């Protein structure tokens, strides 16, 4: 059974805040995050045929957002030759409202490949398999990278499993 436009529209409206948060976690800028949410909607409607079953809607859609966000970061890197550290310091989003500033900074400073996994696995509560699907990596790679990411954040793995 194919997915109707109506189903996509309903899903997109229902989940818009989650989608925005995910986009924002990559670009950390309101306007850019809104752009990514918008682009993802266009992309989803134009590639509706690539989604076979409704149960894959979430991973399918998250993958669109993540790809859009990564594309966006790549372009931005090419445009502004400033390293991430400096960029982050300009960013109003890195404000002091976080309870645990150092920890948050450690997460923000993680390379994208690790950060994506933490966000999808723990903040979005997705299964490892789903995370792998969204990121287009294999399950074992994701597992290894997840442990590395946690180590970098000095989080005790045993507490989590």
């Amino acid at each position: 059974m194919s997915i109707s436009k109506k189903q996509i529209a309903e899903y997109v409206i229902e989940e818009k805040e989650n989608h925005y948060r995910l986009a924002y976690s990559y670009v950390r800028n309101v306007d850019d995050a809104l752009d990514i949410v918008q682009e993802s909607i266009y992309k989803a409607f134009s590639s509706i045929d690539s989604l076979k079953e409704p149960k894959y809607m979430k991973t399918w859609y998250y993958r669109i957002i993540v790809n859009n966000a990564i594309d966006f970061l790549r372009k931005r890197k090419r445009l502004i030759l400033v390293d991430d550290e400096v960029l982050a310091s300009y960013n109003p989003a890195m404000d002091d409202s976080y309870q645990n500033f150092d920890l948050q900074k450690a997460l923000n400073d993680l390379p994208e490949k690790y950060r994506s996994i933490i966000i999808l696995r723990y903040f979005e509560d997705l299964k490892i398999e789903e995370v792998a699907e969204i990121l287009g990596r294999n399950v074992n790679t994701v597992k290894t990278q997840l442990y590395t990411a946690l180590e970098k954040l000095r989080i005790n793995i045993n507490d989590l499993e």
Partner: protein
Amino acid sequence: MNDKKIEQLKENYLNTRIPEELEFMVIKAIKKSKLNESKKNRKFKCLKVAGTSLAASLALFIIGINTSSVFAQTMLKVPLVGNIVEVLTFREYSLDEDTYNANIKVPAISGLENKDLENSLNEKYLQDNEKLYAQFKEEMEDMKENGGGHLGVDSGYIIKTDNDRILSIGRYVVNTVGSSSTIFKYDTIDKQKEVLLTLPSLFKDDSYVDIISENIKNQMLEQHSADENKYYWVRGIEEEGFVELFEKISIEQNYYINSDNKLVISFDKYEVAPGYMGVVEFVIPTECIADILVGDDYIN
């Protein structure tokens, strides 16, 4: 899952401030996408209904005679030149209004002795284009109400091949809303036997679907390894799971026969490749299908 650090980070994440304009923006993007999508999906679904409303098309023929000098000439030419088959522009629709542009040319075939075939093709061409123009106007009004935008439709035809034996005519529709989509639809006629040649009618059995598909997949990979900008949605180039990968041509895949008597398989924009590749065509080497062709009259 009870590490405090992760919990704190998650809390920060969930506390991301949601801008007020998000909802408005999402709804607007959905509206715009639906508009785009209905254009892309339009294809030529109306083929099936061709021939149903005879009364309506009769009325249009009368209008055609009254308003189009080309049509009048077409009518005149039939008895004069006997069975010389030709294609002429039967009607034209055009609209040019600031950011809204439509240019639709309707072809008509004349000179076939087989009037059933000629009429059914011409009626199909007319109805498809009538519908296209009506849809364009509807979308234009819709867009105007929703704050305006750019909308364009360009439709016409090209004669791919016209020799003693074969007439291949390709009709195209280019829709423009931001980005454009292009749809091609071919008809190939045997001018001597006066029959419409469908893809299955060229082959002894259905095995052509697999044989041609395999050949196309190889061509895709070869082109990609020679020039990585030539990108196709096929296993070996695109990873699985995200886009629908090209597996097989359809039984009635769009095709035409080129002037070298080779079979050419055509895919619409976005059908097997990203948009920048446009409409893609593959010439199928005759030796790879020679064994399964009904004969070598058309393709050799």
